[in-house]
């Protein structure tokens, strides 16, 4: 579905991404992990063409993305950013309806059908009860759901998530990722998620891409990527890796200095 062919990108002098190639298949849940500054967010921005790579190209269903226009991309790929502030207090429903933007042509108002699609998205994300509330009155977890509903209103095939669980407590983290997993499994949405939380990524993702200084260090299933050797080499700190006793997925425990002798 998405194919990155040897892409390199730089903002100024230094290359932030170096010859990155990978594929994301339809219906996959892919995690992008790596230390601060390894290029996770930049990679995501390239995937929705906010940035264009100076070398290489991204193909979306075999079409080079430079040949797609903004509205085409917005109909296929939706993004949920880390934190979204809206200057003036729009209601939840108004915010979700903004996701219909790529489908609204020169006639500037949403149709009944647009409203129906947005309401359905709000049903999936369970935010219908407060559709009239102003967006600035919501808690962090509720806001996240609103922006997922806005993304779903775009009727996309892919959703890109940038650090979706940052600033959420564990209840809301699980709530949010379970919702994403349901959308992935039941509605066939392809998910690409950049995350700092490797335990969550290991639990939820089918495949992980581990970045180090703009290159892919390792790509594969969580079992293949999250090993003591890889993590210690990329992050440069001591960790202990075993299995989550319930799911059997790799689990990382952090160790303080000298904590490995036990």
């Amino acid at each position: 579905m998405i194919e990155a062919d040897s892409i390199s990108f730089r903002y100024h002098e230094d290359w932030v991404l170096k010859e990155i190639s990978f594929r994301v298949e339809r219906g996959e849940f892919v995690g992008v992990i790596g230390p601060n500054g390894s290029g996770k967010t930049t990679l995501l921005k390239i995937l929705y063409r906010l940035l264009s790579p100076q070398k290489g190209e991204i193909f979306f269903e075999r079409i080079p993305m430079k040949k797609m226009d903004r509205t085409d991309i917005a109909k296929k790929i939706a993004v949920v950013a880390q934190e979204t502030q809206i200057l003036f207090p729009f209601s939840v429903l108004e915010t979700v309806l903004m996701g219909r933007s790529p489908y609204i042509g020169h006639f500037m108002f949403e149709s009944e059908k647009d409203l129906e699609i947005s309401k359905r998205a709000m049903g999936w994300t369970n935010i219908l009860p407060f559709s009239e509330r102003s967006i600035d009155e919501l808690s962090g977890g509720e806001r996240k759901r609103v922006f997922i509903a806005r993304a779903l209103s775009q009727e996309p095939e892919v959703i890109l998530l940038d650090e979706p669980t940052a600033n959420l407590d564990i209840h809301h983290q699980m709530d949010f990722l379970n919702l994403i997993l349901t959308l992935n499994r039941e509605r066939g949405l392809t998910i690409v998620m950049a995350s700092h939380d490797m335990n969550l990524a290991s639990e939820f993702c089918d495949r992980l891409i581990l970045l180090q200084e703009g290159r892919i260090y390792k790509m594969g299933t969580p079992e293949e990527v999250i090993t003591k050797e890889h993590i210690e080499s990329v992050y440069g700190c001591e960790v202990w890796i075993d299995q989550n006793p319930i799911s059997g997925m790799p689990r990382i425990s952090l160790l303080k200095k000298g904590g490995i002798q036990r």
Partner: protein
Amino acid sequence: MKLVTAKRVLTLSILLCFLLILVILVSITIGSVNIPPFRSIRILFESLLGLKGAGSETERTIILSLRLPRAILAGFVGAGLSVSGATFQALLRNPLADPYILGVSSGAAVGAILAILLGLNAFSFGLPLASFLGALLTVLAVFYFGRQGGKIHPHTLLLAGVIIGSFLSALIMFFISVSQKEELHTIIFWLMGDFSFSNTRAILIIFPYILLGGFLLYLRSRHLNLILSGEENAIQLGVNVEKLKLVSYLSASLITAASVSVCGLIGFVGLIIPHSVRLIFGPDHRLLIPASALIGASFLIASDTFARTLLAPTELPVGVITAAFGGPFFIYLLRTRKVIKSL
């Protein structure tokens, strides 16, 4: 908050048009020369129908050549400043932005003051033309310095605007300090906003800019909503953000330049009207722009009516009235917003 639909925009616009017409009618019936209200309205309607029945020649002149053009001009300026203020608030993503924030007003003022000092205001269009040129040069200068890598950068634009504005303010103060007493009065009145020079030709000069600019902005009103959540978000939703910023900056600036060139710096309207309309009707630009235009027009006509009648025959600068009435009203709105949110 009710959703903004085509039907709601249309209904409210028609209602607000009635309000505007009412304000215009009231405004032409009062003034320092006492003409009974019904006769004033008859004079207006009969002349609209091409008749010449009611009133004396003097009364007709007062209504048709003085009060009516003045009300219409104030209406255009009020609408223009309000729409331009709403746009700058979205473009710069700053609720404190107003039509003058990027220095357009200071440029216009330098142009106007130069015209006054050089005696150009003796010619019928010397003053508005000079101030329009001053405003345009400022718009271009701010645009030139306010970009990075060919793109409009809201923070850079704001910084460039504020700095160029302060430089021009220094020029204004310099000119004021060297000017003669009789010129000083004209300058100060111009700086506070003044409709006493209004005539039909002034309307003809500015209405194309205000209508065209307003139309261009209205076409992009839905995208202005999206840019309120940040440029990356708007791009992600399929908006051509660079074009949006370019068109809205130039349209709002042209509207401002045209408005200030005929009546000087009328403060407060461009800040307070968009915010009041947001508090009443919500932040969606598809309703905000037409509602701000119509309410801004009504507000400025009403303010100007007060300005010319409160201490008649002495005229107050209209800026005194907009600030004195607008401020408390805005605070009242802030306190009661919950009640009127469901309109």
